[in-house]
């Protein structure tokens, strides 16, 4: 990122001569000066509310336009198949993160394990309109140029190489899904297409599970197959609640 290759120097850390100790003399001096110039001093700087905070100048028409475009773009991406929904556990009071393990631990929680049964447990009719929650980006919705990807990902991309046409209809329906919801005729075909996609997706999963057995076993939050390891008590507690999150969540939508 930083050109000079010495990115990390900020604030006081990198300065010679500056220590973490408070410099009493300096503070006293600064206080005196502030008194002389008539600035109020307290233990802390004034709270930046109301009149104390400086307001940025209002946005120009051009900036507004830029923001509008950015928002539109983001919204379209979020509606598209490549966006993956957050699975963070503690959204409201995030803990301080000290390492990779902790960092990873905050993700991949199961909604069912942490939900509040009084407010969100009951399914409602309007839930069917809720936007789909992709935990894993859906690649089936896009044509890819395999040649531009590394070979080891081809199997992932190519899951449905044999029926390219269906893919293309899926793009068109998928990326513009709001349109089809308005139209009952296209809805039906779309549902059919989705069922198609579902079955294809399951085949995918089977393939992938084979893949997985070859690789080293990893702690897997998104995979729904535990490889027959049912009696492993530790895994039961570590992993049991994560069982069927990705794909079961998907099934609910269909």
């Amino acid at each position, binding site marked *: 990122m930083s050109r000079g290759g010495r990115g990390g120097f900020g604030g006081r850390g990198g300065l010679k001569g500056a220590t973490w100790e408070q410099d009493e003399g300096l503070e006293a001096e600064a206080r005196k000066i502030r008194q002389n110039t008539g600035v109020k001093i307290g233990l802390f700087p004034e709270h930046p509310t109301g009149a104390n905070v400086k307001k940025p100048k209002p946005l120009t028409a*051009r900036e507004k336009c830029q923001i509008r475009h950015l928002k539109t773009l983001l919204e379209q991406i979020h509606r598209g198949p*490549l966006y993956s929904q957050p699975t963070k556990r503690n959204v409201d009071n995030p803990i301080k993160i000290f390492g990779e393990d902790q960092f990873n631990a905050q993700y991949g929680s199961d909604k069912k394990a942490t939900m509040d049964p009084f407010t969100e447990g009951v399914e409602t009719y309007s839930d069917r309109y809720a*936007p789909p929650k992709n935990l894993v980006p859906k690649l089936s919705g896009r*044509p890819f140029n395999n040649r531009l990807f590394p070979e080891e990902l081809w199997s992932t991309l190519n899951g449905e190489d044999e029926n390219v046409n269906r893919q293309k209809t899926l793009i068109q329906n998928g990326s513009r899904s709001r349109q089809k919801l*308005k139209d009952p005729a296209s809805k039906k075909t779309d549902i059919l297409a989705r069922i198609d996609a579902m079955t294809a997706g399951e085949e995918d999963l089977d393939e992938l599970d084979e893949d997985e057995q070859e690789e080293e076993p990893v702690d897997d939050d998104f995979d729904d197959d535990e490889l027959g390891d049912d009696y492993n008590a530790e895994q039961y507690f570590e992993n049991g609640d994560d069982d069927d999150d990705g794909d079961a969540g998907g099934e609910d939508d269909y």
Partner: protein
Amino acid sequence: MSRSQNAVELCALLVDETYGELTSRIFTILLRRGKLPISEISRHTRLGPKATRNGLAVLIQQNLVYYHTGKTGPTFYEANDGAAYALARSGKVIEFVESRYGAFARDVVQNLFLFGHTKVSDLAEAYASQQKQAAKGKSNGHSAANGVNAHTNGNIGSGGHMDGLLVELLELGLIEPVVQRMFRNPADIKDELELDITTNEIAGGSIKGSSKKKEQLHGILDERLKRIEAEDREWRSKVLKRPSNGVLTNGVNGSSKKRRLSHGDSVNGDHNCEDDGTRLDVGYSSFLKQNKSPNLVIRINHEKCAVLLRNSQLVEAVKNRLGDTTSQVYAELLKHLEKKIPKCAYGTTEDEYQDRPTISTRDIASSLSKSVNASLGIGKTIGEGAKSGEVAGVKLGSPPLNRKRKAGDLEGSGSEDEDDPPINGNGTSHEVDHDGDDVFADAPAVKPPKRPKVTFQDKLPEPEGLHSREDRIYHIKQHMALLADDQFGFVKREADGQGSWSVNFQKVIKKIQEAEIDKLVLEMFGPAGHRLVRMLRQLGKLDEKQLKDITLMKQKDIRTKLAEMQLSGWVDIQEVPKDASRGANNNRVIFLWFFDNERCSLLVLDQTYKSMSRLLHRLEVERRRAKSVLELTHRSDVRDKPPDEYLSPASLNELHAFQDREEMLLGQLGRLDDIVGIFKDY
């Protein structure tokens, strides 16, 4: 390349904001850990293989990740933080495209952002389907006046229209054809070449110690890199069947034709333009034929985007310093230059500097929009002028006098310019009357004292008929002089006798950086701190005592201020011992204060990254607060209707409050991005 913690955080947040959590997690690990194969990514992120692979596919599709497969062994993936940062700029790029090429182009570019790299055919197809659906939506009676739909419903042209647009954008370089090489880290490519050269071409293998061999290596390396780039360009021009330096838009061609009709003297350039126009058509249709089945893969070229955004930043700076009209002239100049500048760092090497793009006043005059009144915004001095130091005399000149002089000036310069090139090397000798000299000498009215009264013409009523072409050129020349004489040195006069101009971007940007740092220092440390910093910058390293004498401040004040600034890293001390024994005896050591622009740039950059990521955090918090109403608006049955149709007044208020905040946060993000641009990319 090491990145600061804040930069890493910002990139991760941007990816998270755009493509979601999974991709962001993978991206973060790649940023933190460098190159990794898939299995390692899985291990570090604790993600399943399917999730990892899908995530990587998305990242590669959007070019957020480089990959490389060696001859043996696994494929390694590496984060491309430049592309991640560019996500923050997408709004600006789309806005730029819209303002120049219209709504249709905006949709195309937006789709490109959406899809990452795409085949032209796929893009066209997605487009056609959108069009169909939009039409359907209309016939179903949905007024698609809001949000996303409004965009797609704009004037969607035919496929041919789109191809034409794509050619145009390719010409400009805003989109680029994708080749395999782009998926590798450029630094990697260089390293590999270097290795290759050392083993194969330079005898003896090791280059350590011998500077001659090193030089040789660099020579060969540069050559090879250039060859690769040239291959790229060749390929591009093969596709386009056109010389790359031609004038491309019809608007320009049209105006040049008009110019020739209205005016007898045809410069060679006009013929060229004309030729280019016809060739464009030929190349264009052949391009269409070739690429009807195209496997041409294109994507947004972020480097070029930075060039375009830099231009708008420069225009903004000119607007603030010199005024509106001058900035419009400058914008026109930059528009001419931008086609020849592939990336912001262009022009730093000796060779590139040699053939830096130039532009003549005449070309600017011919392509400048007729709606721009070039005669505005130029300050005029009345009377004999300051060069001779004569302040008295005609200093109380009245507007009528000025106008009269003006009229004479027009006729005079008009007849003169008819035959000769407008400016020669010095740029001043063709002024007909003595006032011309004054304008050139005094126009950038920065040095205030001893100045005859300056009046601005803006208010004077000018009959439109007076603005002949020569007049216009004359005015534009004055604007150019204004730009050249400014402290920032926005343009540079070329000494080729043709009256052409070039821009030394690096220098201008450096000036803007300094101004930006000054602004920040003034804000944070008050006038005293600002004064000290400027002194230190101007005079280099200074002892405290000297500083006291020069700044005319009390030593106590200086000391406090400097200490304050040192604590936050803006200035620093250097210790110079007079003899070998340092430390204990303090009077034998000289302490010099200094201020380093480079260092402060890094400081500003880092802090800007930090505030940007905090803005994104804040946005997330605001979203959570407004969650209940946002969930409603995201429901698939209502998300395309205007919210006031289905929301209760209370929740509508809540939604608007949120939208205001979101706008504010994103707006601030955009402004900070400008700063990042100034200090890093431009």
